[in-house]
């Protein structure tokens, strides 16, 4: 029968609806398209490369124009020579690794402390009233302010470095988790409750996964704070027995009035901070957000 669409007979209602349903689903289904490699290159790689080249060009221009003395603003090539020198000495990777390993280890410790602390603040009204404001206040305290105290307590040691990292990163991580939990839509919690997810099961199956985006934002910021705090600590509390990290390298270059070295130190610190973020945290964040449909595929 050709006329089923116009005159639905009662006997074919079932078949009618099944057909309708398939049609609706086909219409509804999301179509996803992968961006071609050339597009990625054009939209993701080209802009930052252009920006860096532009900065280098302006820098070079300023040097050529002789805006200021050579020892204040060295030629870009002088910085390049410093880098090459470090590489040929075989010390470059060692310097970077000393700082990066300290930073990551400190970050992991901050993670281990900040996570339960955040949970406690988010879930207990008493703890929140007691230390919540202090915890968010600590975020605005520059962690470099802790360096003198850490040095007096612990001496110029690795422990002092870690103490400064912890004081900088723990509040960020804890606060990230707290705001992640606070922003969980109540609907999810109610849905969980009707399914029997209460107490610890509710926390594990509903609350924590729902709070994950806020938590990861906290981790990201926690890393930035770890790295910043560590560099401050290395700069101020540098000592030969500590092993040469990026902060000490920078401080040594300053005492030697080695401006290319100073600039190289700054650039390396910047580079490491960006690299860890790009390698670890941004992909993690993107994955979580995208799997929830929270980030448009840009």
């Amino acid at each position: 029968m050709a006329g089923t669409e116009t005159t639905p007979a009662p006997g074919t209602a079932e078949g009618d609806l099944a057909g309708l349903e398939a049609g609706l689903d086909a219409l509804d289904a999301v179509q996803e398209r992968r961006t071609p490699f050339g597009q990625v290159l054009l939209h993701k790689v080209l802009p930052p490369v252009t920006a860096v080249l532009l900065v280098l060009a302006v820098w070079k221009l300023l040097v050529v124009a002789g805006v200021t003395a050579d020892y204040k603003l060295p030629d870009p090539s002088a910085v390049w020579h410093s880098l090459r020198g470090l590489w040929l000495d075989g010390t470059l990777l060692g310097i970077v690794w000393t700082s990066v390993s300290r930073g990551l280890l400190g970050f992991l410790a901050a993670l281990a402390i900040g996570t339960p602390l955040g949970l406690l603040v988010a879930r207990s009204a008493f703890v929140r009233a007691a230390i919540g404001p202090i915890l968010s206040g600590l975020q605005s305290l520059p962690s470099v302010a802790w360096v003198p105290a850490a040095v007096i307590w612990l001496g110029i040691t690795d422990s002092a470095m870690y103490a400064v990292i912890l004081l900088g990163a723990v509040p960020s991580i804890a606060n990230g988790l707290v705001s992640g939990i606070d922003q969980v839509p109540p609907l999810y919690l109610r849905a969980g409750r009707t399914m029997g997810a209460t107490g610890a099961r509710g926390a594990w199956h509903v609350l924590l996964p729902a709070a994950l985006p806020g938590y990861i934002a906290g981790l990201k910021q926690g890393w930035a704070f770890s790295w910043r705090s560590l560099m401050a600590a290395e700069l101020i509390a540098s000592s030969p027995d500590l092993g040469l990290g990026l902060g000490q390298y920078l401080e040594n270059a300053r005492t030697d009035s080695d401006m290319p070295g100073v600039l190289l130190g700054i650039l390396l610190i910047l580079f490491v901070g960006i690299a860890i973020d790009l390698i670890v945290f941004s992909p993690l964040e993107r994955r979580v957000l995208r799997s929830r449909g929270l980030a448009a595929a840009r």
Partner: protein
Amino acid sequence: MAPALTTGGSARGAVEDGAPAAAVRIDHVHKSFGRPGDRRSVPVLDDITLDVRPGEFVCLLGASGCGKSTLLNLVAGLDRPTAGTIEVPGGRPALMFQEHALFPWLTAGRNVELALRLRGLPREARRAEAERLLDLVRLGGAHRKRVHELSGGMRQRVALARALAQNSRVLLMDEPFAALDAITRDVLHHELTRIWSETSLSVLFVTHNVREAVRLGQRVVLLSSRPGRVAREWTVGLPQPRRIEDAAVADLSVEITEELRGEIRRHGRH
């Protein structure tokens, strides 16, 4: 404890005072928000008495804001009545929210599996059972799909599968199809009545759409507004594969709509 009142006082047709008389028993329930004694606290529900018999499909109808969601939340145990009692002898009911309330960090299949897991089903059985439930709502291929990759109608169907996964004796549904287009809604009505007739599920279905209520329910209960009271109820005697465009459905809808209009008009006179 409040004195145990028998259901005999209500104007409803005779319910046998036998063993499992009700799947849901709502007994003289009052609900107001805000602290008791606070002058701003207005009663939302006033003396609601309503039973859902085992295997019955009851539609709860009322104007927006009359307290339908509030009542369902009370039955689901998400909130407590100010006075009166609610009993659900068969254990925790499943609740399907107006918004799908699926967890976006899980795939469609995992959402269903989570409900199975919380119900205590062992790991090996979960996967197959989730497949079965998704098939039941005709979403067999959607197991690995993310929630945001599904259309509104598909999401509601996954939510239905998740609610069914709880294996509750009672299913509470809060305007589950309100946001859908007429055709999709039609399809889901058909599926819901099919699933209901194949199981011994009791359903309390909230809607403000009169035709939907008549299309689905064995009984339609009209709530008045401010405060919410049971205004009237109808028994729908039509046999079940109904369609929303059936003449008999339309006739009864007209009658109920007239009554609903009257209810709403009553407020305008004050």
